[in-house]
């Protein structure tokens, strides 16, 4: 019985990782109605920037903030120079651009920072494991950070005019433009914020899985499954979905299908959600008039 409990707790910790990237995916979807396949690689790249700043001697939280600013600017610039020209192109063109970005970030990171595995410090310090070895300090700290990001994203879209304008710009660009919403700027802002959230996720994930250019490869797939399960339009859904993915993965791997089929489980969940309830557990069903 203790084993099951331990698997669940460990699954929540891993699920927190998926949830943080899933949040960035939801952010970009709410702001642009696209799924950015390069989200994970951008987060990985930001984490390398943070590591470089730390190695230059900056204190952790200063490096953390500087990385957020850098990532925000990187996201805005990418949207302006790469996706703006594709605004009216078919969706496949954007998908191509996202996959291209994924490869570019992966290779540039390898070229600049090498493929050697690097340790990344945790801001929550090292200490003895807590609750009888169930939770480490970092796992607890990063869960708190993910919750804080979730609250901010939710409050931003729920209570601010800017959040409303962004959702409008994504959902119906023509009408938004008619009522005076600067659609282009809103999309760029969405990219910036998503890149920032990704950077936070990267800095929380790296102490657990270690930093290398392929750090996000596996994470992104589970995050994607988590975001879909919770509902791609709901920040809360992303977090719940992400955590559920972590727990399901652990329990299925340990007791049901065996470790060989863990990844398959994630893919089966993606397919099941898309077939049975495409809006996910918490998402709104979107209908557009054609």
């Amino acid at each position, binding site marked *: 019985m203790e084993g099951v409990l331990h*698997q669940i707790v460990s699954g929540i910790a891993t699920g927190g990782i998926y949830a943080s990237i899933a949040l960035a995916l939801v952010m970009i979807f709410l702001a642009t109605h696209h799924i950015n396949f390069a989200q994970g690689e951008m987060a990985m790249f930001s984490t390398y920037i943070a590591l470089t700043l730390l190695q230059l001697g900056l204190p952790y939280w200063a490096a953390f903030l500087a990385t957020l600013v850098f990532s925000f600017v990187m996201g805005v610039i990418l949207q302006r120079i790469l996706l703006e020209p594709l605004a009216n192109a078919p969706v496949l063109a954007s998908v191509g651009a996202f996959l291209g970005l994924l490869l570019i970030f992966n290779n540039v990171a390898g070229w600049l920072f090498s493929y050697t595995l690097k340790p990344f410090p945790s801001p929550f310090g090292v200490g003895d494991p807590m609750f009888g*070895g169930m939770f480490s300090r970092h796992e607890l700290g990063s869960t708190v950070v993910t919750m804080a990001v979730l609250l901010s994203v939710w409050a931003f879209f729920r209570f601010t005019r800017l959040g409303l304008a962004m959702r409008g710009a994504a959902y119906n660009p023509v009408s938004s433009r008619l009522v005076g919403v600067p659609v282009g700027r809103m999309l760029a802002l969405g990219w910036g914020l998503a890149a920032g959230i990704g950077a936070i996720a990267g800095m929380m994930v790296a102490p657990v899985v*270690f930093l290398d250019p392929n750090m996000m490869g596996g994470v992104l797939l589970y995050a994607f499954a988590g975001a879909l399960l919770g509902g791609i339009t709901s920040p809360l859904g992303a977090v719940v979905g992400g955590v559920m993915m972590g727990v399901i993965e652990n329990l299925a791997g340990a007791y049901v299908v065996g470790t060989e089929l863990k990844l398959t489980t994630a893919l089966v969940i993606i397919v099941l959600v898309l077939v049975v309830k495409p809006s996910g557990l918490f998402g709104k069903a979107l209908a557009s008039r054609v």
Partner: protein
Amino acid sequence: MKRRTVLAGLGSIAAAGVARPASAATVVGVTATEIKIGHTIPYSGNASSYSVGGKSHTAFFKRVNDMGGVGGRKINFISLDDAYNPAKTVEQIRRLVEQDQVALVFNPLGTPTNSAIHKYINQKKVPHLFVATSADKWGDYKNFPWTIGYAPSYRTEAQIYGKYIKAQRPNAKATLIYQNDDFGKDYLHGLQDVYGKDFDKVFVKVVTYESSDATVDSQVVSMKDSGADVMVTACIPKFTAQIIRKSFDIGWKPLHVMSNVSSSIASTITPAGPEKAEGIVTSNFLKDATDPEWKTAPDMIEWRAFMAKYIPDGDTTDGNYVYAYGVASLMLQVLKQCGTDFSRENIMKQASNIKPVSLPLLLPGMQAATTPTDFRPLKQLQLQRWKTNTWERFGAIIGA
């Protein structure tokens, strides 16, 4: 069709008419002045950190040429980039065999890449010597008589670990985690070789992971819950580092025996935290260039002089240079054994008849040897244990 048969018939008559040695030896890639050797390695892409091997070989054969060559001939070493992509390896090897017409292919790197050319190169009967991968399948002299391995295979390594565990913990309750591919499965098979029918009794929990997984935390929890007191890990550095950290975090301290694929201090121990790795057991067959014990060893001095003269910008703490120097020395040994007969048949005959020989930069007592029924030149390892800040070798040189 008929015409072709006739032509083929004429061809064989013509061939029979020409005076040829009785053995019908094939001499390709060798002239009175040079021997062509082909090689592939990733100079670009994910695995390009291995490219120092190609750099080292190029410099090594340049030195051979500077010292007068071998068998009265200079070596023309052609090293091509395959980016660790099997499709590209096939293309480059075909180019080497069909266009450049090399005498042999030496030390191409990687398990998936060599697997892709394994059949082709044997059909073409081109010596495929001392491949740079430790999978067990390169020693299959019956089905692939033109391919020969080099370093101790993963399976040999696992057998050595199995024997060590059996001796140290006769009543062990053990657990194994392996990467779900050729590399990981070699360890499973090696341990099964040692334990035989008892394997399932001793190994109370066997789990796997995919190299695309995000973490292996769940597997570590399962292994701890099995109540095992010995853990064997056949994982790449990233996951080994995670296992070391996670088992420390959950307060589990089994006897940890790990694949030497992960013995790199820089990519496994440092990320995990050296204090968490205390007591881990693994193995090695090469001298570590950073170990002060070898500072005055003659082979180390010779190698440092070589590096200083031929690769002055090379990082001497990079173990890939040490590995490359040893295997290139074995290649040179085979070429010397050939005398002046550089037919492909004779090259293969010499490569499979190496009397026990010590190679530079191998641990003292290690010897390379082959016979026509043994295509695994190195079969020995020495165990080592992580203590404070370094690997401490212990026990004798062990063969499987």
